[in-house]
């Protein structure tokens, strides 16, 4: 049985009357990429803050890298890397000055510092721009540099808070390759996101809504566990059709995807027949219905409904 790098048991955080995180438990192993998926305000950030040693939980217990999340906050800070959605290197310092500053803050010195700075420069593919002021770098390079700065001190656990928001798809892909590499090197990576496609990259995902983890598994298993039929419907005048479908009592969830309508309904329901009844009646002559594989978004939406959100 391998020791978990991160393990929390029933941690809770209350702010006054408001419970931001409610008895959350999970365990993450070495090298795992673990995703937190949830809407804004669901408690993702609060959970991450408790794991980073910034916030003290109101209840529950846990450890990160063997340091207790209540008594070992300072130790935890030294042993984690953190990168936030907001670019947070100093724009008015050069690449090297930034890296050297963050290195020393984490206690790196001399040879070791120089070695790690070189490593981070390599990750960010900075090339000849080491002495350029950071604000002159392109967005993708800045983002990789932020990642490089976060892992300067070689932390075993890395927290990425919506790391790819505002980055174009190619850079995003590029960035995820870096994260896979780190994971293969044995780093445990936490990612919070509200992008479904980003969540697909994770080994396991925790769906978090209203402070509670409502589902936790691999993306494939989560999709497989969906006890709903998922269909895609294509028709002309789809806006009118959508209003009809969304209002029908046998439809659990309907959403527009481009010019298609995705329909979630109970498994085994004779959907075609039921749709005929309402659509034909309203003059929608032809339409095409097709059963499709559920996406994480479908899972998310269904789970959210089930938990009354």
């Amino acid at each position, binding site marked *: 049985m391998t020791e978990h790098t991160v393990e929390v048991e029933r941690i809770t955080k209350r702010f006054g009357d408001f419970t931001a995180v409610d008895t959350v438990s999970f365990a993450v192993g070495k090298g795992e990429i673990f995703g937190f998926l949830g809407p804004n305000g669901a408690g993702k950030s609060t959970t991450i*803050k408790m794991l*980073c*040693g*910034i*916030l*003290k939980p109101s209840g529950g217990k846990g450890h990160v890298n063997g340091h207790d999340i209540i008594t070992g906050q*300072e130790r935890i*800070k*030294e042993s*984690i890397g*953190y990168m*936030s959605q*907001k*670019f*947070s*290197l*100093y*724009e*008015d*310092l050069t690449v090297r*000055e930034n890296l*050297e*500053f*963050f290195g*020393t*803050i*984490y*206690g790196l*010195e001399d040879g070791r510092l120089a070695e790690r700075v070189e490593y981070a420069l390599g990750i960010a593919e900075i090339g000849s721009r080491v002495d350029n002021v950071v604000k002159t770098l392109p967005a993708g390079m800045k983002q990789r540099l932020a990642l490089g*700065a976060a892992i300067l001190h070689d932390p075993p656990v890395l*927290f990425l808070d919506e790391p790819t928001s505002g980055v174009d798809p190619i850079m995003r892909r590029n960035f995820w390759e870096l994260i896979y590499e780190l994971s293969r090197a044995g780093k445990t990576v936490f990612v919070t996101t509200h992008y479904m496609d980003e969540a697909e990259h994770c080994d396991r995902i925790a769906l978090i809504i209203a402070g509670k983890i409502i589902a936790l598994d691999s993306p494939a298993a989560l999709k497989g566990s969906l006890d709903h039929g998922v269909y895609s419907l294509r028709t002309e005048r789809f806006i009118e059709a959508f209003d009809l479908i969304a209002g029908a009592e046998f439809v659990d969830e309907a959403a527009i995807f481009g010019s298609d309508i995705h329909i979630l309904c109970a498994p085994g329901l004779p959907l075609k027949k039921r749709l005929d009844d309402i659509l034909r009646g309203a003059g929608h002559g032809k339409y095409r219905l097709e059963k499709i594989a559920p996406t994480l978004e479908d899972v998310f939406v269904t789970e959210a409904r089930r938990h009354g959100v």
Partner: protein
Amino acid sequence: MRAMMKAIRKKTVLSFLRKEFRQLFRDRKMRIVVFAPPIVMMILFGYSINMDVASVSMAVLDQDRTAVSRALVERFTASGYFVPNRYLDSPREIDPLLDTGEAEFVLVVERGFANRVKSGLTGSIQTLVDGTDSSRAAVIVAYVNQITQEFSQQYLLGRIRTVMLNKGAALPRGRQGIGMQERFLFNPDLASRNFFLPGMLALLLVLVATLLTAMSIVREREAGTIEQIVVSPLRPMEYIAGKSAPFMLVGFLDIILISAIIIFWFRVPFNGSFLFLLASGLVYIFTCSSMGLFISFSSRTQQQAMLSSFLFFMPAILLSGFIFPIYSMPEAVQLVTYLNPVRYFIAIIRGVFLKGVGFAVLWKDLAALGAIGIALFYFSARRFARGIE
């Protein structure tokens, strides 16, 4: 204090300081902003702050037109305080002059003045003074009193002399009666510049140290870089110390620069110990910088920080004794001034510059200043530590 020191690691702080200094001085604009305004303001105010009453513009309406009346008018013009710029012919001309401010003071000698004086009656003159600025008017009236008194005394003496000569008696020598010799201590010339200019040091430093410190922290919060600091092992004390230290150094250099301008350029006498001025200046900058920290932790944006700073500056300056003496404020307000760091430093500066006193006399002010600084620093540190959450 020991706990404060323990919460700071030398190497980390040095690295943090290096970064702060780089950021502060990388920007050419910033390098100028830090030093130029205090110097420019000092020179500008040095020339403009002058409460001395001199060159009072004067108009004369001499209806008597005799040797005696001319002699009286000459007393005024020769005094050095009055500049006669109009000689009038009619009382009707007086009002417009006062209205436009062309004359602040009008001397009216009535017809028959010389005759009345010669015949032993009281010759009267009328003086009209622009009372808009009450303290200036009071000084003008004092000058007028002095000049007319001297004039009438000398006139009397002359008369006595003539009478005695006629009777063949011995002549009284020189001035008679009781003469007062005033000697003013600490500011012998009673130059208002000597009183106000050193105080400028306190004003400029509170602006520089408070505003720059507050802005620097809020800027970091706005940029989001503070988030990266919060997750790092950098401790709150280290962060706060690192954030305020560069501005303390800048403030310290400003003390030297500004004092040099005051002493060497404006020739304000400096009677105390420069070392004591520097040491207490450092305490003052620490307190102002802590005020900046305090403001920054209650502001979200740079505009908020700016506004809060100015809300602090106005009362801090007006209730410091810089312009209005504290003893003439209502008692409740006087109590409030005990919380005002500027008040203490103004007292220290004036003591050091003019009276030449030092620690033995000023230790209470210095202690109060330091206590306010430590309290503000402590509250800010706590606020920051809690703000992390």
